[in-house]
């Protein structure tokens, strides 16, 4: 076996160095080896991730990337497949009433939390009731906003809604509504720092946590309730999984290349070419099934003159996004067309090519709106006032060259149309206070893998316009339709309408790039993948190390 491999390497590679490297990396390192397609149990794997989870309790974990870690010890009621359908997990089956307002789940009766407590309907009820009570301050109370009451009877859970909710199963499949031992749930945010009390039912068990350094999981040897659609059942393959928190991009990639860690997530676009040059590293870009990264523009009169839709459209069309994205990301990222990710079933394909890079039309519109004079720096003015757009992005969220991207747009907008983009990166504390007060202009960001309809209601009816008289009512009304309908066509139509309104008609959201998570893994590590309920790297249940 080994001889054959060496020969293959020698014939396919002209460089002796490459052949030597392949030899020294051990016998089983080739992902293509026939022997290595059969999973083996045992071993421990280490991931390097960019950020330490802000919280390990599902109800208070607001950072999407953290879910990749939480998923290792937290299961959900239902499992979301790659195609967006749902299959059994903690619930072995469920029925929906004809009016879509009652869901009856039958839970598996063999599931135990890692501390030995039984996971029954009462446990699930306790979790969901805690999260949906807005007094507890969970970010995910809104996911259960349509719930009127929850009844638990042995292994039967009945959720009664005040109205049909097309997104309920999607919400329940997410880590955000994952189930932990209810005995400690009243501790609320105290569970954020993992300790003995925080227990889930997942394939791994929290073992140790060192703030600022790492978290270690041990295999849950009793695990026997994996989603049926996965390739295996019983316990996970790995004995132990460690996540190291390494903020520096170059350190993460270096640790992977030198074999000190087996996988990294948060792969900077510019490192991809260097990483994939090696046969020993595989790179996977996750599904573009979350909301895209883009500029959310305040359409209310507090943001005058940008409450004028013609000005917003002119800005949106004042730059050539294709060229900018290509130049910055070297083909590793895709420009976005909509607020909805292109791999989502909800993506309205007609948005492709429907906006952007219409410099002449933009200039005509700006002239017509009275911004026809220029100041000494070449920016448009009207009545002595410069046409300026304030873009504020909290410094902590800036990553993956998003600042470079905004600066390129800043440059293009100035050159092409004389619009000033005033780009600053204040702290989140300062910025969130401004947003809460309605005193914001443009916020760059992505909203993660969300239920799109509910997100519109939360974001555009609530969060961004909480302090404003004006609201993007049309989008919010469509979102209400989408949430409450049980008809698939009506749902799709409403989602299309929302995208057209936000991006095309109103330019309240200017999509920039698709937002994805990435995994780069050493070739000895197999089975990594994505959690389709969140678009983030999945738990390590399927992951194994070749010997």
């Amino acid at each position, binding site marked *: 076996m080994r001889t054959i491999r060496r020969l293959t390497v020698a014939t396919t590679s002209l460089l002796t160095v490459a052949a030597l490297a392949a030899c020294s990396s051990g016998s089983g390192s080739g992902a293509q080896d026939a022997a290595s397609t059969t999973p083996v149990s045992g071993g421990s794997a280490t991931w390097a991730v960019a950020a330490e989870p802000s919280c390990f309790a599902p109800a208070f974990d607001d950072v999407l990337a953290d879910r990749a870690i939480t998923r290792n010890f937290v299961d959900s009621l239902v499992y979301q497949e790659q195609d967006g359908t749902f299959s059994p997990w903690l619930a072995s089956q469920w029925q929906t009433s004809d009016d879509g307002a009652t869901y009856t789940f039958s839970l598996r009766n063999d599931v135990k939390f890692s501390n030995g407590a039984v996971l029954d309907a009462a446990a699930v009820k306790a979790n969901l009731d805690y999260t949906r009570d807005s007094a507890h301050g969970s970010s995910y109370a809104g996911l259960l906003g349509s719930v009127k009451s929850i009844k638990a009877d042995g292994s039967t859970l009945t959720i009664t809604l005040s109205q049909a909710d097309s997104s309920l199963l999607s919400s329940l499949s997410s880590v955000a509504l994952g189930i932990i031992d209810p005995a400690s749930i009243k501790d609320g945010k105290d569970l954020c720092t993992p300790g003995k009390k925080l227990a889930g039912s997942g394939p791994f068990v929290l073992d140790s946590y*060192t703030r600022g350094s790492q978290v270690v999981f041990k295999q849950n040897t009793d695990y026997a309730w994996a989603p049926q659609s996965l390739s295996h059942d019983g316990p996970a393959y790995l004995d132990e999984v460690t996540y190291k928190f390494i903020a520096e991009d170059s350190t993460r990639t*270096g640790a992977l290349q030198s074999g000190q860690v087996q996988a990294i997530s948060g792969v900077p676009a510019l490192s991809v070419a260097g990483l994939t040059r090696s046969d020993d590293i595989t790179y996977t870009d996750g599904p573009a099934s979350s909301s895209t990264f883009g500029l959310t523009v305040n359409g209310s009169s507090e943001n005058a003159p940008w409450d004028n839709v013609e000005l917003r459209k002119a800005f949106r069309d004042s730059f050539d996004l294709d060229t900018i994205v290509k130049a910055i990301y070297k083909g590793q990222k895709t420009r976005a067309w909509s607020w909805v990710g292109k791999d989502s079933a909800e993506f309205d394909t007609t948005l492709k090519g429907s906006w952007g890079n219409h410099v002449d039309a933009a200039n005509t519109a700006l002239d017509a709106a009275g911004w026809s004079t220029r100041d000494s720096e070449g920016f448009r003015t009207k009545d002595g006032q410069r046409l300026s757009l304030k873009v504020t992005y909290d410094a902590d969220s800036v990553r993956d060259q998003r600042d470079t991207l905004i600066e390129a747009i800043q440059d293009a907008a100035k050159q092409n149309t004389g619009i000033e983009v005033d780009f600053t990166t204040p702290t989140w504390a300062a910025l969130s206070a401004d947003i809460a007060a309605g005193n914001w202009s443009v916020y760059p960001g992505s909203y993660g893998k969300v239920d799109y309809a509910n997100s519109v209601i939360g974001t555009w009816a609530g969060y961004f316009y909480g302090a404003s008289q004006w609201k993007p009512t049309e989008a919010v009304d469509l979102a209400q339709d989408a949430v409450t309908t049980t008809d698939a066509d009506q749902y799709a139509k409403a989602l299309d309408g929302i995208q057209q309104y936000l991006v095309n008609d109103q330019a309240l959201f200017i999509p920039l790039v698709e937002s994805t998570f990435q995994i780069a893994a050493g070739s000895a590590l197999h089975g990594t993948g994505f959690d389709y309920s969140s678009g983030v790297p999945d738990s390590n249940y399927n992951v194994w190390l070749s010997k």
Partner: protein
Amino acid sequence: MTSGLQLLRGVARRLAGAVLLLWAAATLTFVGLRALPGSVESVVLGVHLNDPGLAEQVRSSLGLDRPFLVQYGDYLLGLLRGDFGRSYVLNADVTDVVGAQLLPTLGLAAASVVLAGALAWLIAVLSAGAGPGTERVLHVLELLAICLPTFWVGSLLQLGLSFHLQWFPSVGADGFSSLVLPMITLALPIAGLLSQYMREEIALTLRQPWVLTVRSRGASGFRLRSVHLMPHVAISTLTVAGNTLGLLIGGAVIVESVFGRPGLGRVALDAVTDSDAPVTVAVVLIITTAYVLITTAIDLAALIIDPRLRQEAHG
């Protein structure tokens, strides 16, 4: 007056000064952090600031609805009891957070200072009295050690000794091997600084008349520099070493980030960026305490090493 009483009085004066310094540090941080943009509620609640009822809940649970002076008094009383309050961001008691991070940082700092001291001593002793060419080379090296950005040095060490040669792990805090690279990174600028001072001091002292006496007794050049000169050089070097605390703390912030180590530096950095006032205050007070302890210890050590200082204290 006995020198014991003298010492006691000195210590008492020191202590009073230390308490005053700590109070000033606590007050300044408290006022400063409250003056920062963004209310405490918005730090705690983030996107939930406008959720009905939550802001009021936070205000009353943190006592923010009471008069400023009452809050300040409560805060000082809490500090006296060793209660630093609760982190706004980490959802944990500050004492737990800071307590768990203190040891790794102390370990790193102590190891780095010892290494820096040893390096500086070795260079100074071996090179004092060498020709002007060696002097100049050493001077440039010392300057480089002091001036090169810690981040850059750390990354370079990581690249060479960890990623390529695989001698040491690049990140983490598992055992001594993971301490080596951070320790070297943090020690280099301090070693450069100390070595500079030590060499100058040695050169100065070598011109003292008593050196001739020692030499005439037949002591070798190395023995002279490493044994007889040491007490003279040690005092000024210790004072300089005490003042490198700032370098040490600033360096620890960067080193802990680059090498993915737990520690106060990282916690402090996060606390400041997140406007997490209680954690920031705790870190500031720990640093102030460390500063007071170190400078006091150095003053006392100087008294022990140099009998002349004890004489002067009488006068």
